[in-house]
């Protein structure tokens, strides 16, 4: 299935900003994070189609997943 993966801040370094990637059925958010070799402890915010999710969430074809480190501002 096709998943749009968007990376932000320091996660872009050595990776990419945005890619449409192919994953098998039943792939979870955690699988994508591991596939991209992002240390789980560094993950701050996971947004799937605009909604916060955790690493266990299963993905569906056409999903858009945004992965951020811990960030803040304001």
């Amino acid at each position, binding site marked *: 299935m096709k998943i749009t993966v*968007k990376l*932000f*801040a*320091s996660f*872009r370094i050595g990776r990419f*900003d945005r890619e449409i990637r192919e994953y098998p059925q039943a792939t979870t958010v955690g699988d994508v994070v591991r596939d991209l070799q992002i240390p789980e402890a*560094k993950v*701050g*915010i996971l*947004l799937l189609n*605009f*909604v*916060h999710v955790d690493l266990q969430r299963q993905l569906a074809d056409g999903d858009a997943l*945004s992965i*951020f*480190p*811990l*960030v*803040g*501002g*304001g």
Partner: protein
Amino acid sequence: MDKILRINMGASGGPSQNIEEAGEFSALGGRATTSMIVAKEVPPDCHPLGAENKLVIAPGMLSGTTGAMSGRISVGCKSPLTGGIKESNAGGQPAQVMARLGYAAIIIEGKPASDDLYKIHIDKDKVTISVDNSLKLMDNYPLVEKLRKEYGDKAAYMSIGSAGERKMAAASIACTDPELRPSRHCGRGGVGAVMGAKQVKAIIFDDSGCTHRQPKNQEKFKAANRAYVEGIRKHAVSGEGLPAYGTNILTNVLNEAGGYPTRNFKTGFFEGGTKISGETQAELEIQRGGLATHGCHRGCVIQCSGIYNDKDGKFLTKQPEYETVWSHGGHCGIDDLDTIAMLDYLDDNIGVDTIEMGVAIGVAMDGGVIEFGDSEGAIRLVRDEVGKGTPLGRILGNGAEMTGKAFGVDRVPVVKGQALPAYDPRTVQGIGVTYATSTMGADHTAGYAVATNILKVGGDVDPLKPEGQVELSRNLQIATTAIDSTGMCLFIAFPILDQPETFDALLDMLGAFYGIKMTGDDVVALGKKVLTLEREFNQKAGFGAEDDRLPRFFKTEPLAPHNITFTVKDEELDELYNWS
């Protein structure tokens, strides 16, 4: 900080000055000091631009010490924008210098009978208040350049631009950064108009011959400061994200969460977000020979700011903050960083709040004054209308509410007359509670529920649901009021919310400095005390429960992409101040 300087601008025969004992204020600071003095001395029903209003300036409890992050300065008064009490704080150098000069507060009261314009110079020996009509209608950058020739580069400057002199309700007070740029602003609530009403153009602080303020317990203070700095450096937000990308890192976060108010709060996603994001901004700054990492005051270890150069590599402005990029960017349908940076510079120069100004322009766009996305038009409105004080400029410079009325707009995002910042309350319901109930009017910094709702720092409360938002906002508003009194930068909240040992280090610093034992309960008690005073002031000024509300369209118009409305009930909002 054992003295208070009181200046009566309306004294017969010209401004008078008096030094008073600081008393209870010698161990207080920032918002606690300004709000307690305003609540005690300003009639709540006075006109904000009249002689009875007072402008109170206070450094933080630890400003002027060797303690890190202690450079916020608070300005308080009755607000010409909201009609309620106001505390607006900024970074830059003035807090440190004013504290080393020994002043717990400066109170500027009265109003001159003549139309003369004054400047106030303060050094360790004396205070000099002098007429200088050559400064009339000068804007902040040329003004500080001129003053530097007279007072030198060791001083710190607070000043108003032409907007303050014209008493616009969006007018700010500029504070100079370490390189003497007037780029850090007490922005919100029109504090610059109150300074303008007092006919004070600039305050110049020179601490030559003064030393750092000395803690009661030097060793303990040093050790606590070390632990505090370590805690700030090791947290991902204050140690990595903010230094590298600045506050504008949030553009992508809020956009991806569907909470980025776009084209005057019509949708929650801006298609041009990537082009104006913190990642793009930091890359561009470095490419043009600017800086993506820069501190607004000496002693800052987060360094969230930066230097934004123009296409030719020449300084244009400091790194625009997230809220500025939003108000002039997505809110106006503008996706060009150079336009936004130019607007940031113009706002700083003229001396207006970037949030209020940007939101007012977006409301004007909704009213058909110019089209959404019109970059040139937005620059023209600020530079040639607000900056020149034309009738249109005076409407815009008086903020979003005034602009909405002038152009018949029925979608005006304000609470208590103050413009909403860069987080849609339908998608970030916790910040909606803060906007509605804060004593300050719509203000994200008053209780930054975005941290818990969206960023997942300091806990996790679902941003899309009403449950738990009132309690969250209440606790954050109490804690923030206390932090605003310490003079600490609010960004220390990220590490202290997540790391109990860093919070303890801050308490130890305060305790070691004043020779007392400071606990978390003391901090909460201080926050509650100040909030209660502020709320009582507002009630006496005429505010009731009906003013603790968001504009109704947030309850009736669903926001894409989540297609939800703000669902925290009015009765729940009314519970915010019911604490035991």
